[in-house]
């Protein structure tokens, strides 16, 4: 089932369906490349020396995500426990909220 | 070794020494004899020793019996111990009578007047009661 063409879905859903594909990624890459190239065209008024390094921000952002993903992975490996770890003292171990509970709340 | 003082001390107080000996004999009998009648005898000996002690205390050398004679120079013995002991003799007789009466009762009850035998019987009764 392709969400992009599924006419039973609302128009916004179909639009979002397009984003879900490869297109978004390549659009982003295109925008990113353009923005990165602008570093060479535009001279910013940096306060810190290292800001002047070309592609500093782009690289820093990408590196941040990588660091975060890796750190998250390590934390997950170290600290992940079952949902019942604290049961019955937490809501994590409880079943999904039933419809009437949600309405009541 | 009897020098002048000590010999006179012992001799002059001979009555007290006699009292002490007599009293100890009585005490010894009370403590050591199991026979109740003998105990009473010991008690009486002890008692007599006490009487004699008091009477000796009251004796004044050269004194007469404390009966008024009309002579102002007359020396009398101290009347108080005598009176006291007169009473004590009466009490002593009564005590002895009571003691002997009790011994008769004990003899009837236990069939013996030996103290250790009585104690044995008592213990036997206790044991039976508690069992």
């Amino acid at each position, binding site marked *: 089932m392709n969400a992009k063409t599924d006419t039973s879905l609302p128009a916004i859903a179909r639009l979002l369906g397009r984003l879900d594909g490869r297109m978004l*990624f390549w659009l982003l890459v295109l925008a990113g490349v353009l*923005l*990165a190239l602008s570093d060479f065209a535009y001279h910013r008024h940096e306060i810190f020396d290292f800001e002047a390094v070309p592609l500093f921000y782009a690289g820093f952002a990408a590196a*941040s*995500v990588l660091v975060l993903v890796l750190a998250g992975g390590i934390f997950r490996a170290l600290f992940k426990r079952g949902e019942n770890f604290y049961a019955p003292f937490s809501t994590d171990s409880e079943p999904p909220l039933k419809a009437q509970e949600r309405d009541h709340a | 070794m009897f020098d002048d003082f000590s010999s006179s001390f012992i001799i002059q107080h001979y009555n007290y020494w006699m009292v002490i000996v007599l009293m100890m004999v009585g005490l010894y009998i*009370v403590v050591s004899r199991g026979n109740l009648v003998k105990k009473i005898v010991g008690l009486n000996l002890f008692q007599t020793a006490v009487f004699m002690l008091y009477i000796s205390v009251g004796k004044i050398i050269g004194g007469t019996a404390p009966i008024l004679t009309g002579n102002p120079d007359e020396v009398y013995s101290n009347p108080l111990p005598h009176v006291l002991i007169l009473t004590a003799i009466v009490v002593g007789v009564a005590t002895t009578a009571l003691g002997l009466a009790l011994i008769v009762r004990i003899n009837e009850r236990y069939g013996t007047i030996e103290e250790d035998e009585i104690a044995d019987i008592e213990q036997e009764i206790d044991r039976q009661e*508690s069992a």
Partner: protein
Amino acid sequence: MPDIFPPALIFIAAAIVLPVLPKGNLRALFLLAVPLVAAHEIWQLSEGVTHTYELLGYSLTLMRVDQLSIVFGLIFSFAAFLALLYAWHVKDTVQQVTTLLYAGSAIGAVFAGDFVTLFIFWEGTAVASVFLIWARGTEGAYYTGMRYLIIQIASGVILVAGMALHYHETGSLAFGALTLGSLGTWAILIAFGIKAAFPLLHTWLPDAYPAATPTGTVVLSIFTTKLAIYSLARSFAGTEILIYIGTVMVFWPLIYAAAENDLRRVLAYALNNQLGFMVIAVGIGTPLALNGVAAHAVAHILYKSLLFMAMGAVLYRTGTAKASGLGGLYRSMPITALLCIVGGLAMSTPLFAGFVSKSLILSSVAKAYEPLIWAALLFGSAGIFYVAGVRLPYLAFFGEDKFAGAPERPKEAPWNMLLAMGLTAASCFALGLMPATFMSFLPYDVAYDAYTPDHILTQLQVLSFTAIAFFALWRFGLIKRPAPGILVDSDWLNRRLALAIVKLGAYISRNMWGLMSRTATRRLDAFLASIYRAHGPQGPLARSWPAGSMVLWIAVLLGFTLILSFSQSL
């Protein structure tokens, strides 16, 4: 201006009136009117001290109005309006009343001019808010609420202890700038720090927020933490240690947010991270930085509410907010998905409020020339966009369609939720579009232009490469949809370790007590028994002794007495 009714009391009065109103639209309308009336009142306030009152010989200030309190008062009222609109469908009186009390307390605390008044409202926020968690009505929510409440009240009692010490030392109860140094001021800082979720004091936040009701979490996310930020800005502006505390706050929660499964908990951690931004700015303490604090609080309340609303809508419709059970939801909840994406963008994209406020904070840190802190903030900006702006919407709404085989697809969120989210998004947008108006509200009169080419370019680069990195890593399989399970945070220390220690202590003391009382009883019994043995009917001292030995003993006794009396007379 004595004709102005204190806005906090508007909420509280409304909370008292509310239960007698009939349930339904009338009540919901009344609820919506309350924050609007309050906002209107606050709008009309002019700076100065109004409404002082006497309590036990203390001259207290109910309303101390300046630009800082007005900003917080306004955003609190407005956010309360949005949250109540979002909760239009809720019929539960308890939640309605406590929401009003909670908002009223927070606004009251913001306008408090002295510590006693602050304390009253401070505890008010603690007690009122816990009902939003308990209202979920499950065993787990009950325990979570108790933990939350104890920590919140701990903050209150530490505050009152700090107040007492501070008062003892200085004789002043004014809620103003403090210099860290004495025990009292440290206690006050810690009290604020608990509500501001300082590292290691933060566990209540990711613990409690995901446990509340869908609507309750939105309300919770608005007040408590921002009230703490306000208090820090009021009392501890320029305190250096806050810079380092804030830096840790930027990092630690972010890692958890990047790894969590429960998306509302992801948002709670993200919120904690954003508090770090504000704490750093408070630590910098320059007028520019404090403007940044106020601006970021406003922007952050709006976009974080929006994200919590979106996740609340997902929870409301699907029954879960866990990434492991979600995916592909854009098919059935497209508007929610779109608004969620807007919420993510609102955090730092130009044209949105978050961009302005973040630029303020970053600039203030740069001006203070703190390169490491600045880099940390940059990392935080990229990271927060990754966890809340990209990863979260993607996990919830895109990817594998988890509801493909379900008998019934989840429906789009109800109209009131959509409307509330739409309004929130619009306000983010409006503030971002009109930075000058935004700036004019801030406490200090500092000229600042967020929309320089530098800032825009920088921010766009950061955002686009963050997104690119996410999608690239997703393709390479380095980022995956998380499996069910929870992450143990430092809450393990109190929920497991401390509990175990307490249990061990209880076990030891119970047994020690038992042993002691048993020993004592045994001793006593033995003592009584020995007395009984000696003197009881069978006892040797009660038996009849032979007369002979009696006499002997009496003689011995008499002799002994003689010796004693003679030796005494000698």
